[in-house]
């Protein structure tokens, strides 16, 4: 587990450094994801074995299996903005609910149409 976590953190760290050095508007973890993906591709190419290493896959699955939990602390931060949310509740709730659901419908239909066989 520790080697796997170290790999994940190293990719994140490299992503943070790269993003800052090149002044990219993308957060470090997203760049880290791209880096890790590149490493996995490279490893598959070099070793001719496509599978993610067992141990590493298990650690990634354990983290991602509880991905929802990791959003909870930031989500509780909504309590800080209750007055602001209450003041502009009409445009905010309409944009959040109707805007998000319209986006789901639009993107889903578009993707299904573009992906048709």
């Amino acid at each position, binding site marked *: 587990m520790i080697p796997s976590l170290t790999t*994940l953190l190293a990719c994140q760290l490299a992503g943070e450094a790269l993003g800052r050095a090149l002044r990219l508007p993308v957060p470090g973890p997203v760049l880290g994801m791209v880096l890790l993906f590149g490493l996995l591709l490279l490893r598959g190419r070099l070793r001719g074995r496509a599978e993610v290493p067992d141990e590493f896959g298990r650690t*990634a699955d354990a983290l991602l299996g509880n991905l929802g939990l990791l959003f909870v602390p930031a989500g509780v931060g909504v309590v800080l903005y209750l007055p602001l949310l209450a003041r502009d509740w009409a445009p905010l709730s309409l*944009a959040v609910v109707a*805007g998000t659901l319209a986006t789901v419908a639009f993107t*889903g239909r578009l993707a299904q149409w573009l992906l048709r066989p």
Partner: protein
Amino acid sequence: MTGLAEIWVYLAREPLAALTATLMAWLAAQRLHRLLGRHPLANPVLFAVALLAAGLLWSGVAYRDYFQGAQFVHFLLGPATVALAVPLYRQWQLVRQSALAAAASVVLGGVFAAASGVALAWMLDAAPEVTASLAPRSVTTPVAMGIAEQLGGLPSLTAAVVILSGIVGAALGPAVLDMVGVKDWRARGLAIGTAAHGIGTARALGVNATAGAFSGLAMGLNALATALFLPLLWRLVIG
């Protein structure tokens, strides 16, 4: 009773209590989610956030003090985002075949997300800084806050709106996709990841491996595309 008050003062100051409360709220939310037959409306993130927010308001503990403990959970969000490369890699054969269609859907979906939020806020005469805060709603929180700042919005309001959009997309998105007849798991994942970032991806990963991989891909791609294009589009349209 002074003993009890002293214990309370100690607990409110130490990170241990907030961390334990966060994990307990998550376990309770997951149990409720299972009890309700894993229905998407019974979103565990929503339950856990509501439970903890109510607890903070009731006990009068400040969010900053709560976060002292909860930050240990929050920190794992970074490595977990990096780990999204794993499901993506496992589905790479499938993703590669549909890369262009997937990318086009995500970029256009991201533009639609920003435009729909701004248009709806405009219709209701929202203040300009509120409208600007709503534009980057569909992308993952750190990116959204940076963009909101560039557009003249309020980053903190954006953070709240991003989380709420993610919960709405994860809880109601699957029903909407059923309603408009989107059955392809790849398309379902792309739609949820574009509109509801990581919170939607958390849900998609639990339902279907293909949807999860495409959702993670959409989340990353939308963050990239929105960060690059939204400030430019904004200047072109708003002036």
